[in-house]
């Protein structure tokens, strides 16, 4: 039973991270479309932000592994 709950928790964490990374990526695309000459800076900032969002999800997934 705890395993099932942990799986649900991991799934919720992934949904959250998916929305977050999607927003980061979408806005970055907007920004690049608006200012193609700044694409290099925007890309590295985008990857950094996506990594931070992913970090939160990874902590949630780790917790769900240890709780199961």
């Amino acid at each position, binding site marked *: 039973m705890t395993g099932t709950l942990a799986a649900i928790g991991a799934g919720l964490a992934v949904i959250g991270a998916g929305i977050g990374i999607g927003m980061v990526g979408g806005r970055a695309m907007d920004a690049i479309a608006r200012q193609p000459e700044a694409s290099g800076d925007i890309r590295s900032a985008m990857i950094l932000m996506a990594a931070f969002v992913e970090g939160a999800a*990874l902590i949630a997934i780790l917790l769900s592994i240890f709780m199961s």
Partner: protein
Amino acid sequence: MRYITYITFCCFLFIGTGGVFSQAHKHADDLKSIQQRKLDHDHDDHKHDHHGHSHDGHNHKHNHGDHGHNHNHNDGDHKHDHKRHGHASGHGHGDPCAHHDEAYDPTGTAIHHISDGNVYSILDAIRIPLPTFLYAPEKGWDVFMSNKFKVGHHEDGHVSHNGYVMHHGSAYRVVTPGFPQEGNHEHDCFTHKTVKDAKGKDKVINYVMYGGKPYELEARSTFDGGLLGGGITSFYDFSISKNVLSMILVALLLFFLFRSAAKAYKQNPNSAPKGIQSFLEPMFLFIRDEVAIPFIGEKKYMRYLPLLMSIFFFILGLNLWGQVPFLGSTNVTGNLTFTMVLAVIVFFVVNFSGNKDYWKHIFWMPGVPTFVKPLLSVVEGMSLFIKPLTLMLRLAGNISAGHIAILSFVGLIFIFGNLYGTVGNGIGTALAVPLTLFMMAIELIVAFVQAFVFTILTASYIGAAVEEHEHH
């Protein structure tokens, strides 16, 4: 390009630390395992009828006769032993080695294939023996090549060596007293059963059949074995395992690639790059110009460039090495212990190069109201440790997930095959081949992206630590 030598040097540093850490782990104090066994024992129904079993006498005789050091196992162990025999005799009467065609277990297969091991198998046919260094506190060192185990199908050994056996590519120690602790002894197959532990969780215990009786195996002694269903053990495994061998090979490969490139730059400094140079130079320049300089700054980036380059190329090399089909598909960068070593190195580099401003921003953030400052220092203090933690998890998680996805797609063949026979095998293959190819293409991108992400995050952490602030 003089810092190329630094890169190779750092790679060797990583081998040293990574090799030890990927195999060294927590080991049990005996007390803890005994308590655990007593707990198990209390939950067992058979605990009262153990006097009736003839095995008991045999085991005790064995202990006192041949191997004096075994009989000082205390009461907890003995009880546990009886309990197991109670189970074994109450369970099946037939030969457990006879029913070999058990159901396909996708999870177990995937975990086995992404785990580290003491033998390097290519296509389940060629088996490269590896040096195995095992240490148990009461026994001392056992140093031998892993072909002593006579490894066969499924990376299961057929011979025990000094009380160790090989199961699914890893060395295990037999804990049940009575198993020969010296020399080589041929044994039969491996079995396992699932029991509920004290907390009601399922726990798989492996047994080796020897002389018609099952003997319990302790958990694997690798750190990642502990995370993926193993546990704390009474022996250490310091072997040059599959992962360590891959690390050595990749580091040597990088060494020779970069040395030949460096030579070429020295000999013809003014000519266009050619050969291996044109492969390495774009990546090198990309990391320097897009990662190191923007994040760390023009003034200080040279100090950290060797570290960033070795991190990038070492991770990239190992990611790609693990994806070469039919070459053992090692999962080094998907191993939490390996990424932990990298993250710990980054943690120390960042915090030892942190200047006054960095620490001030952690403990007493300037420019915010005073009552917020303690709160922020708690958050910042936590993020100090969360940063390397997420570095470690991100890399291991992404690479392991890719390997598991590929293995699951390959597993479709066997799942369909179990359901519909030969036709099912065909359907499974028709599904598995394109899906696996697709996944491998994705993984190729992921190999570069994750190496890049690790490097860019390291650079940004270092950049935050060495940044000079104008005073507010």
